[in-house]
């Protein structure tokens, strides 16, 4: 289907979702890259998914707030665990994050193996798709992003390590459901890699520019080519990031 027949009102929620995710993920990603823990979002997302699956195996509702509470609680537990390991074994933090990812993923398989209502649908419960964003999700994420922005830009010095991990867990649990795990990883890491060699005071603005432009362009390309939007945005962001990264080296 061509550009002509696509109703533009299907694109704006996706664009808003992408921009909201960028607001929190670009600065978080720069921290994550500096700390050398780039796979933390994948681990947290798996832990959140595990929380939902465990809750449902105890017969709790997996729809609506039950799932959100389970996902949030699990993600927070994972975050606190990682805070603790960073203090105890800072030299192995990235490896421990990887191990947490594998453990959470395989624990899902083990729990589902004995869950009569398990199966593939449940596993994808927390995997969002950017084109299917609902208005209610946007409002929720908007509120969360506003809280994030307030905390991050005013009290970042005060929240410390625990605050960072807690904030990260909550933000990622929401964004994974909004745009899916590929876009979460990309929005965190790619702008950070694109900008880390630029002047420190310009990194955040450049990162926002890369992320915002990628969502805009990626959605447009996805409409013209009718390819799945998330994957297109990932590739557009990677290419823009390469340009921004090289632009620094040329000087």
């Amino acid at each position, binding site marked *: *289907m*061509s*550009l*002509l*027949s*696509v*109703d533009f*009102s*299907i*694109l704006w929620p996706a664009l808003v979702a992408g921009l909201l995710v960028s607001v929190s993920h670009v600065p978080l990603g720069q921290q994550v890259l500096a700390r050398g823990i780039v796979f933390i979002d994948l681990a947290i997302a798996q832990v959140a998914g595990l929380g939902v699956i465990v809750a449902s195996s105890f017969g709790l509702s997996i729809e609506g707030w039950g799932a959100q509470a389970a996902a949030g609680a699990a993600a927070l537990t994972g975050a606190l665990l990682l805070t603790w390991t960073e203090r105890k074994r800072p030299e192995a933090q990235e490896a421990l994050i990887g191990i947490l990812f594998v453990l959470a993923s395989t624990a899902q*398989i083990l729990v*589902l*193996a004995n869950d*009569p*209502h*398990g*199966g*593939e*649908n449940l*596993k*994808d419960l927390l995997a969002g*798709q*950017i*084109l*299917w*964003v*609902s208005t209610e999700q946007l409002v929720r994420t908007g509120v969360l992003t506003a809280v994030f922005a307030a905390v991050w830009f005013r009290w970042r010095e005060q929240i410390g390590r625990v605050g960072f991990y807690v904030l990260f867990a909550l933000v990622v649990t929401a964004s994974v459901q909004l745009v899916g795990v590929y876009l979460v990883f990309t929005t965190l890491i790619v702008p950070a890699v694109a900008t880390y060699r630029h002047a420190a005071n310009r990194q955040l603005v450049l990162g926002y520019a890369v992320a915002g432009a990628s969502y805009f362009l990626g959605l447009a390309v*996805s*409409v013209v080519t*009718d*390819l*799945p*939007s*998330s*994957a297109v945005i990932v590739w557009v962001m990677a290419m823009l990031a390469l340009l921004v990264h090289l632009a620094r080296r040329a000087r």
Partner: protein
Amino acid sequence: MNRILRLIATLLFLGMALPAHAALRILATTADWGALATELGGDRVNVYTATGALQDVHRVDAKPSLVARARTADLLVSNGAELEIGWLPVLVRESGNPRIQPGQPGFFEATRQVRLIEVPSQLDRAMGDIHPLGNPHVQLDPRNIATIAKALTERLAGLDAGNAAFYRERGAEFQARWSDAIARWAAKAVPLKGIPVVVMHRDQAYLRNWLGLQELAAIEPKPGVPPSAGHLAQLVSKLSGTPPRMILRNAYNDPKPANWLAERVNAPVVLLPFSVGGTPEAKDLFGLFDDTLNRLLAVIQ
């Protein structure tokens, strides 16, 4: 920038000014229901199919054209019985399209028209991964297709009253050809009765029922959950006593589990289309069953 905007505006205007297609816009979730809608609607309908035959219909990537079609569709032809539960309810809800909401004439579920098998009599926790509404893969019994086609013809006639006579005539013509085909297939399939087979999941249950195949075991009792070592060991030891004639694998299944078992129990793996488009021969609904039977019969002859 201004020129680009003007260009886009012009293109959009042209898009709207193009000869308004009077055809009924249909969104079908699977290749089979897309094929049936095309079969019954001919050139009076414009069918968009959400998933290809080799795609897992449980998971669907959101493409702009899919969302666009959901917003403009006059009729949604879905499988139902929770097959598309992972994405369709969200898509329908977020489409904001009042015509295809559940309960509206533009919301059609194929499985609502037929009797489902494997409906759990109660939620038996030991049964494993079961669909509470019954087995949703109804398209593999051609008698179901006939029933669903009848209901879909009436739905088309109701939604597009101006062409009602056309749909009814075309529907009757399809029913005649289809019942001839069923008779032909039934005669051809006689040697398959009672043949012991192993299946991947339970998604071939309707085919098995129709042909009278004897299902010895399923390789993956729970879709999405890898089988345990104990299950596989049990499978091999059980099957070495009563070997199957063949192991059935759907075109969209991962070939590894079936090949693994084939090495151990000395039975050939038969690849079945499962869906229109699953094999090059299964071009339409008639081809789906022709090819399925040819492939099954090739092994026992």
